[in-house]
């Protein structure tokens, strides 16, 4: 089969940030295949220089609106690592709730607003307001739940105001905690209503095995602490994250890319699922089985399903955290500590995958050097490699269909290009 296909998609829609896809097939041979990031670089690591520890989370949360809590968590963890601060159980539970808030907002947005229209054959969620009003209303409510948990616990979800090094500056009342438990239970019931719809999705039958990298803590479906786990080589200390990420630049993208054992690796919900599925909550396991998601899963289009499964696990985790806060009582914690000069690293899972913040502080608590590595940057090469594997198998389709499948693939990764592009690398000796 010899065919010429040239695809140039400017500004892929329904992703965060700006990305273009360029494919050039001549006589059946793939000449060019690129995911371009055309986002303006924002130079966050440069901006962090000489800023006080109290501001590092404030600044880095602005890297990305949708992973804002994730950046805060990564940033606080890095600062705490540098200063040798151990956070309390209470703080862990509160952060867990913030993390759940963010995942609800982000996963729901991705599943319902960005991915569902593809499967429903709609251009966007707006036409669905007329055809599937109940689903849209449910989606908005679930997304709003994420925002509201963020508001109640952290002052607000996007760029939270109450999250600080060592401890929150705000504590929830028992009424709020009861409310959160109640609403997370409700959320599970609501989500179950859409299992049927998800089952009708015809998910492209495309598989490509790759290296799956995620946070790892034995016995936990890890989000907030742990080491790094690679499906190829196993566990590595979070301190050695640079050995994993190996960032490099390519010409056509302002976002840095990463490679480890192979040419590329995958992070995000599917990587987490593949590496940590045994620690999902029982409910989440049942849902996964019901939706045909089995580890290891090599189909990137299934990321959306993995996210859906995570929503159940997270609801269960949130209920546990809130209950523990209720059982043990919540008190405003003392936020005093001594500043220690040195380096600290934070590794956390955000909706799109593992994220690293790495700071060097001076003895006054001002940042001397910073490095932030964002999930999408890590996924970019993997997406391109998926393209390379996918395109030759679908050349018989129309150009429109090919474009749509490629766009859907990019969207499946839920790329938050906006943040990936702003991230830079400062070499550490």
């Amino acid at each position: 089969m010899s065919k010429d296909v040239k695809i140039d998609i400017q500004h892929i829609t329904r992703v965060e940030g700006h990305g273009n896809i360029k494919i050039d097939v001549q006589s059946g041979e793939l000449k060019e295949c690129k995911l371009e990031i055309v986002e303006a670089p924002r130079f966050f690591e440069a901006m962090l220089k000489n800023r006080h520890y109290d501001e590092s989370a404030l600044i880095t949360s602005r890297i990305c609106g949708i992973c804002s809590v994730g950046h805060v968590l990564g940033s606080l963890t890095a600062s705490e690592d540098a200063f040798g601060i151990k956070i309390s159980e209470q703080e862990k539970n509160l952060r867990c709730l913030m993390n759940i808030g963010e995942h609800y907002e982000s996963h729901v947005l991705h599943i319902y607003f960005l991915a569902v229209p593809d499967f429903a054959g709609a251009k966007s969620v707006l036409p669905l307001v007329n055809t599937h009003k109940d689903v849209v209303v449910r989606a908005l409510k679930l997304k709003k739940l994420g925002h509201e948990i963020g508001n109640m616990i952290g002052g607000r979800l996007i760029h939270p105001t109450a999250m600080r090094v060592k401890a929150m500056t705000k504590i929830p009342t028992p009424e709020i905690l009861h409310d959160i438990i109640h609403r997370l239970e409700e959320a599970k019931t609501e989500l179950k209503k859409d299992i049927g719809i998800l089952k009708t999705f015809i998910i492209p039958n495309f598989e490509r095995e790759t290296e799956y990298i995620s946070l790892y803590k034995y016995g936990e479906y890890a989000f907030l602490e742990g080491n790094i786990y690679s499906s190829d080589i196993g566990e590595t200390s979070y301190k050695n994250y640079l050995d994993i990420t190996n960032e490099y630049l390519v010409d056509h993208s302002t976002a840095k890319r990463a490679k480890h054992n192979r040419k590329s690796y995958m992070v995000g919900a599917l990587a987490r699922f593949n590496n940590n599925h045994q620690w999902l909550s029982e409910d989440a396991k049942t849902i996964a089985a019901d939706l045909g998601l089995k580890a290891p899963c090599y189909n990137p289009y299934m990321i959306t399903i993995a996210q859906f499964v995570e929503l159940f696990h997270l609801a269960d985790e949130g209920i546990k955290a809130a209950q523990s806060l209720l059982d043990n009582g919540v008190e405003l914690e003392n936020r005093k500590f001594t500043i220690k000069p040195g380096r600290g690293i934070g590794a956390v899972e955000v909706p799109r995958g593992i994220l690293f913040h790495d700071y060097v502080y001076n003895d006054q608590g001002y940042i001397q050097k910073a490095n932030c590595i964002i999930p999408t940057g890590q996924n970019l090469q993997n997406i391109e490699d998926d393209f390379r594997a996918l395109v030759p198998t679908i050349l018989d389709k129309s150009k429109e269909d090919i474009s749509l499948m490629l766009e859907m693939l990019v969207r499946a990764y839920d790329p938050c290009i906006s943040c990936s592009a702003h991230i830079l690398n400062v070499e550490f000796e």
Partner: protein
Amino acid sequence: MSKPKVAFFDFASCEGCQLCVLDLHPEQLLDLLNVIDIVEFREAISEKADTFDIAIIEGSITRESDIPRLQKIRDKAKILIALGACAHIGGINALKNFQTKDEYQEAVYPTAPQKYETSHARAISEVVQVDAFIPGCPIDTNEFIKVVKNLVLGKKPGLPDYPVCMECKKNENVCVYELGMQCLGPVIRAGCDARCPSNGGYCFGCRGLITEPNLHSQKDIIQKYNLTYEKMMDKFKLFLERNKEVFPK
């Protein structure tokens, strides 16, 4: 009343403000769609629009190549709204302007500093005429609704032009100066319901200065509480680099 066509565009930003726009109750979204026609919103819909009445712009201008794109949008729009701190006052992006271009490029892409086009970060009003703005980093969803509604009704946007302190007092907070922190609230535009001070933080100025800030008095406060002037100016750097009253060039 015919529904105005509204298009969203973004430049250098975290897109958090657009996410706040989507943070609506279901009824609110349905009501909003009855009042305006969203014809372009890259984060949520695939459609692209050639014509629109209201352009809502998120993000700051950080590349010369952004300018023609923004100008084109300006030419087409009857009303152009700056959404969020990045677009309104340059936002956090302008923090890099305190360094030279070489410095920040070197710091981020040490192996290839000149690789990507960049220049100093600017508010969009430095490039095109802005008819209304929705301040904050991120914006307040209710304020967004209010401004859009007012424009549809032919009213002025109706943003407050008094300091955050007023809302902070309404929330019965103990002033953070009393707690040993410093706060830019006395000169920053209210409308956020004093979110940061009300949640254990302090105001760092994301909504920009009020029209008649008393910066002299702000400096006196700093002295009274034994805080340093340098530290205060350092706080202003986070969001107010573009402001000539604070940082005369």
